[in-house]
């Protein structure tokens, strides 16, 4: 009985606080939540910086949420920011499937949501989507690699480091690679080796080591993301295969993202080509579309915007390098 009395007193004390708080009014300043799955790669770090800095420069309040690669946590975070009354949400989802669930949550709450660079698995939710044409960009990079391979006058042993195939970006990049494989059937000594990475450097390291042991002749390697180049170097260097273009032991190397590491490797001559996502362009597209939706009161904007991207290669380095976001950051260092 005594416990119950104490409990009742405490609960009664809570009521005024409750009444005081429930009707509190928030500021009129535009608030956008930027919910990202993690900042593991240079691409995401640069994307995060580009978006948050640009928004803040425009006087917009930015709430940042890092889900640490947990889709469930990201869903909870999105619900929390909706409760806080944000005007819009920019999301980098953990994967395409969770993007759909989270976008539907925002739709139900009437908060515009934009999915940045990692598209939803389907179009059942309404959202702004900015995505690179991964298939085309990857194909352009691998095409240059194939042209380099042809100059060798022999067949080559191809391999691809595949991303998490739950991510449509990884699917598109793999498809771009496969398009070139199909285009030049006589160039390959055997079907391409697919090395799973799950977008995880540790997984990539273990699987690349195994692949190189099982297939020591691999001399044509495409990574689905530039952030794996340090992993590739650590595996190829002990084998004497981490050498510059033109060396007989050079592994024809390509990637995709256009990050600072890729810029350095292109500059130093280790890398043949990388597909470039125009990060700053994508960030601008997303912010413009989001602010437009907020201004017009569109609670469920639905628009897919594509970044055509391009391939930066040893052949066009002099003319196109400045268009690559990683190159700009590399030269600023």
């Amino acid at each position, binding site marked *: 009985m005594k416990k119950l009395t104490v409990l009742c007193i405490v609960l009664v004390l809570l009521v005024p606080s409750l009444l005081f708080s429930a009707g509190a009014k928030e500021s009129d300043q535009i608030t956008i939540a930027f919910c990202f799955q993690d900042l593991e790669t240079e691409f995401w770090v640069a994307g995060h910086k580009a978006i948050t800095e640009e928004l803040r420069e425009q006087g917009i309040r930015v709430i940042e949420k890092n889900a640490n690669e947990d889709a469930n946590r990201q869903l909870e975070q999105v619900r929390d920011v909706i409760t806080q009354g944000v005007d819009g949400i920019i999301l980098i989802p953990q994967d395409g499937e969770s993007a759909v669930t989270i976008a539907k949550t925002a739709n139900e709450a009437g908060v515009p949501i934009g999915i940045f660079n990692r598209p939803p698995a389907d179009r059942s939710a309404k959202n702004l989507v900015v995505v690179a044409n991964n298939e085309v960009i990857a194909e352009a990079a691998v095409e240059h690699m194939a042209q380099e391979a042809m100059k060798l006058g022999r067949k080559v042993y191809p391999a691809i480091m595949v991303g998490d*195939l739950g991510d449509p970006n990884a699917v598109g990049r793999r498809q771009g690679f496969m398009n070139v494989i199909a285009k030049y059937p006589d160039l390959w000594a055997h079907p391409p080796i697919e090395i799973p990475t799950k977008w995880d450097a540790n997984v990539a390291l273990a699987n690349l080591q195994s692949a190189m042991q099982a297939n020591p002749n691999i001399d044509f390697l495409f990574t689905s993301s530039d952030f794996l180049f340090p992993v590739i170097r650590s595996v190829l260097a002990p084998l004497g295969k981490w050498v510059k273009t033109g060396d007989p032991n050079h592994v024809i190397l390509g990637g995709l993202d256009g990050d600072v590491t890729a810029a350095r490797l292109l500059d130093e001559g280790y890398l043949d080509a990388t597909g470039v996502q125009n990060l700053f362009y994508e960030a601008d597209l997303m912010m413009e579309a989001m602010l437009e939706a907020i201004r017009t009161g569109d609670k469920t904007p639905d628009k897919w915007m594509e970044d055509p991207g391009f391939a930066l290669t040893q052949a066009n380095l002099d003319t196109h390098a400045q268009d690559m976001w990683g190159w700009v950051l590399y030269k600023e260092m």
Partner: protein
Amino acid sequence: MNTTPKKKKPVVDDTQHQGSGDSLAVQPNLGKRILMSEYFVLYLTILYIIVLTPIIPRLWHPMNIQNILSNLWPLLVVAIGQTFVLIIAGIDLSQTSVMAMSSVVGAVVMTRSVDPILFTKSPLWGVFLSEQGGLLSNSIFALPVGIVVMLLVGLFIGFLNGFSVAYFRMPPFIVTLVSMMLFSAMAIFLTKSENIRHLPEAYLEISKNQFFVVSGSLIIAIFVMVLAHILLSRTLFGKRLYAVGINATASQISGVPARRTTITAYMLSGMCASIAAILYSSRLEMGRPTLGSTIFIDIVGANIIGGISLAGGKGKVTWTLFGVFFFIILANSLNMLNLSFYIIDMVKGSVILVAALLDVARNRISREQM
């Protein structure tokens, strides 16, 4: 963390294992009485809410209350499962892998369609999965069979854990660590790390609010909580759990079927993890091979905050509820304060540490007063 003999009182003492400060022979001062109260965490939570309310105006927003409860139910269920194991001085690290396996297996049974591009490399393709969906896609039995299969997965993994601990006398930490690795990897292997979507609408409805905060998750969680409370406080099995937790050997000599009790505790833990998997995967609308992979610290942390002793022999379902409630309120408030992810985890870690230290202090005071 094991069931080897300990120098503890072999007799099951209700007032000791249930931790009520009111029944102590010597009346301590107010500070100690509050500290020793089984409602200590609840008082702390209420105080925390009172302090936060003016700082976070939207704390009491109806939508935030829905969020808090939506986050609370699945964690409460899985934490209750862990409570059974902690009471017998064990630990179940495999709960996260049970959640992953359950969600995958359940989704394989229930899904209405899958993308062949993603799943043709899965070992399940052509046998359990096809473009038309899972084993029972579009069947009226998909939902009940899927849920039963999910529960069986939890019971099975729990049985393996309990059997290894009880009969081979293997340390629970190692047994459940291996289970965690094995079944997490298996969930990823079976799906090739892909998420399985297109689950039946009725399944997705479980986690949706039907009327304000009333949802299937709420009903399931309260059902589990009440059942667990009755099991622990009103049945012979409950008394046996405490006895095994205080001293497994002594309890066995006294006629308690310690091995059977241990196995049952782990099976209950596994089943609760499976039920939590139902709630989480319904909310996320998919079976995920990585479901729950990051929440183990939340599960154990909530138990420790609630006052469930890692040394065993002590714990109540209401304590778990208080611990989970505090943990969820803490996480929600830190999110609402818009602190960075790293700060949030540091605060959470610190709170768990303080709770563990408090447990030590409470045990010491309890011994001094006996």
